[in-house]
Structure formats: C-alpha cells, structure tokens
C-alpha cells in the first residue's frame, strides 16, 4: 500500500499525471506553436474537431431519418428501464442496496414536489416531474461516457458518422419535452379549476363586458371605470398567453444551449490539451447536467402549481 503522500494520493500517481499533462500540452496545438514540431507519437494529439449542430443520419426507416441522437435516446430509455427493473424485482421491506438508492432518489424528488406544490398537488404532479428529471439527467450523464464520440459507423450516404450523440444536443428533444410540459400544464390546470376558468385567465374580457353593460344601463361613471380596467385586463391576458408560448421557446433553448455548449467545450479542451486537462470540465458537465434537469423539472412543477391554484375572486 503506497504511503499516503500529499492530499491522500500517492506521490508517483501525481507525478505521473503531471508528466502526462505536460507532454500533452507540448504536443498539442498550443505547445507546437511555442516549441515547434518535436515528433511525439500520434496518440498524443487529437485532430481538429468539427462540431455539427444538426445531428447526423445513421440509417433510414422508409422516409424517416434515424439520427444518432434518437439512438442515444433509446439507449437512455433502456438503461433507465433496466436500472429500475433491477431495483424493484424483489421488493423487500428492508431494502437491498440498489433498491435503497432508488428509493432515496425518488424520496428526495417527492419531498421537492411536496415542498413546492403542497401535499396533495405534490402527489399528483410527482410522476410527470420525476420522469422529466430522470430523462434529462440520464441523457446528460450518459453523453459523458467514453463510447459516445468514439464509435463510428458508415451511413447509407457513405459518410463516417458517430453512432451515438447526447440526446439533449438535438434541438428536437428539448422541444418535445417543452411541448409535453405545455400540454401537461394545460391539462392539470383545466382539471383543477375547470376549463372555462383556466382559459378565462388568458381571455379576460369579463370586466370589459360588464362595464359595457353598466353603460347601457345608464350608470355612466362606474361603467366607464369598469371599461377602462377591463381593457387593461384584456391586454394583460393576451400578454400572459404570449408568455406561455415564450416559455416553450425558453425551455427548449435553455436545455439545448447548456448541453451543446458543454459538448463543444469538452471537444475544444480535449483538442487543446489531450490528456489530463479535461477532468475539471467533466466535473463541470456533471454539475450542469444535474442543474439543468432540476431546473427543467422544477420550472414545470412551478408552472403546474400556478395553474392548479385558483386565483382569489377579485372584488368587483
């Protein structure tokens, strides 16, 4: 057993990592500008990456292009299903290790839902929020595994493309999840306060019509006041409707931007210094994946809570 040197790691290991870092710095593009070509073996340098925004087609099913992000999405589904199946196969009162870990994760998410949405609404919204959270975080973290940029395949067009690519970097996936979030918020809002009242938040013409009715009844001053506030209410309702659609775009671009920027960052860092320097950025990517999943699920939960809580009736 090596003697516990500095920071609890053995000293030869730290020196080995430092040497690797320096060699890959010198043989990378920065070092070769500084010192000229020193003839290092070719596995110390990486070719210039060409990040592509739209995902590449791997094969075709009839008229539909199956892209590499779709295949990665299927992989995520299989992995998540397998983990949870293995955890719940023989459910015991005193849980086994895997079941314990899964119960801890789900328990934490349930506490989160109940904190934000209250006791009874928290249980209602828990499945949707948990599914979104687990899917986003599994997509993000599986995209950091080594095989995701190394396995290449030749597609029917004859190009060499990657077989797998993190599913969140294809803009269709965050868009699909944002649309699902929108539909779910509409469904739960309609179910809780009634469809008419839920839609009435956005087409808030009640006070306007009541004001016009007051004018026709001869009550001029009160009628004009109600017409004035009714016009303001109508415009506020239209702005709220607009904000619902802006919310879809915002969800999409937030998740897509964070994941794509992280992928491009990792590619660039590995191109510049090939071996050891990407480790802190992998840590950053793990954190960003977790935070983005929490934000997507948490914002969906907040909008669900707002939609399911009836506003207090305003004094006429």
């Amino acid at each position, binding site marked *: 057993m090596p003697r516990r040197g500095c920071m609890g790691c053995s000293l030869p290991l730290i020196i080995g990592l430092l040497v690797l870092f320096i060699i890959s710095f010198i043989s990378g593009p920065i070092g070769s500008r500084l010192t000229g070509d020193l003839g290092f073996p070719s596995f110390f340098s990486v070719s210039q990456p060409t*990040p592509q*925004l739209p995902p590449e087609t791997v094969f075709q099913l009839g008229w539909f292009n199956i892209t590499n992000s779709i295949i990665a999405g299927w992989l995520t589904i299989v992995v998540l299903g397998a983990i949870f199946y293995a955890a719940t196969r023989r459910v015991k009162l005193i849980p086994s290790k895997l079941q314990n870990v899964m119960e801890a994760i789900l328990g934490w998410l349930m506490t989160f839902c109940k*904190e*934000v949405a209250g006791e009874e609404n928290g249980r209602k919204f828990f499945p949707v929020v948990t599914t979104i959270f687990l899917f986003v975080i599994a997509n993000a973290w599986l995209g950091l595994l080594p095989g995701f940029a190394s396995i290449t395949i030749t597609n029917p067009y004859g190009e060499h493309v990657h077989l797998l690519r993190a599913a969140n970097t294809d803009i269709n996936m965050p868009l699909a999840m944002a649309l699902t979030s929108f539909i779910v918020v509409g469904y739960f809002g309609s179910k809780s306060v009634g469809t008419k009242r839920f839609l009435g938040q956005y087409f808030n013409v009640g006070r306007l019509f009541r004001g016009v009715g007051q004018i026709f009844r001869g009550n001029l001053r009160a009628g004009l006041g109600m017409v004035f506030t009714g016009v303001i209410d109508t415009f506020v309702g239209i702005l709220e409707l607009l904000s619902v659609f802006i919310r879809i775009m*915002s969800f999409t*671009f*937030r998740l*897509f*931007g*964070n994941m*794509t*920027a992280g992928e*491009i960052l990792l590619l660039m860092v590995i191109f510049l210094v090939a071996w050891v320097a990407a480790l802190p950025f992998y840590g950053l990517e793990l954190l960003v994946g977790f*935070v983005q999943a*929490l*934000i997507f699920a*948490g*914002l969906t939960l*907040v909008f669900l809570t707002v939609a399911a809580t009836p506003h207090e009736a305003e004094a006429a």
Partner: protein
Amino acid sequence: MDPQAMKMLAVGLAVGLGMLGPGLGIGLIGYSAMQALGRNPEARGPIMTNMILSIAFAEAIGIYVLIVAIILAMVV
C-alpha cells in the same frame, strides 16, 4: 472589410456585450438572496429554492447569446 474578419468581430462582440446583462443579473439575485438569508436564517429553504429558480431564468438569457454566437461562428 474581409467577411471572415467581420464574422469573427461579430462573434466576439455578441458574446462580450451579451453576457454583461446576465452576469449583472445573477450577481444582483445572489446579493438579495444573501441579504434575505442574513435577516432570516430560518427561511433558508424557500429562499434558496427561489434563488436557484431566478438564476436559471437569468442564465437562460446568456445561453440565448451563446446560441447566436455558435450559429454565427459555425453555420454562417
């Protein structure tokens, strides 16, 4: 002016000017959260939850700028 040079200038300006807003915004959110936490340490849960939520909104604006810069740099 050379189109390539203009493109590089545009990308640099977009990210540089565009990140001023979100940076200041997140700083202000953190400042107010720290003040609130100092006045009322018992309300740590709701304060932190709302702070993370607000930071996510402010950060999204910075991500929009990054998308524009990436599209300018690689697609145009």
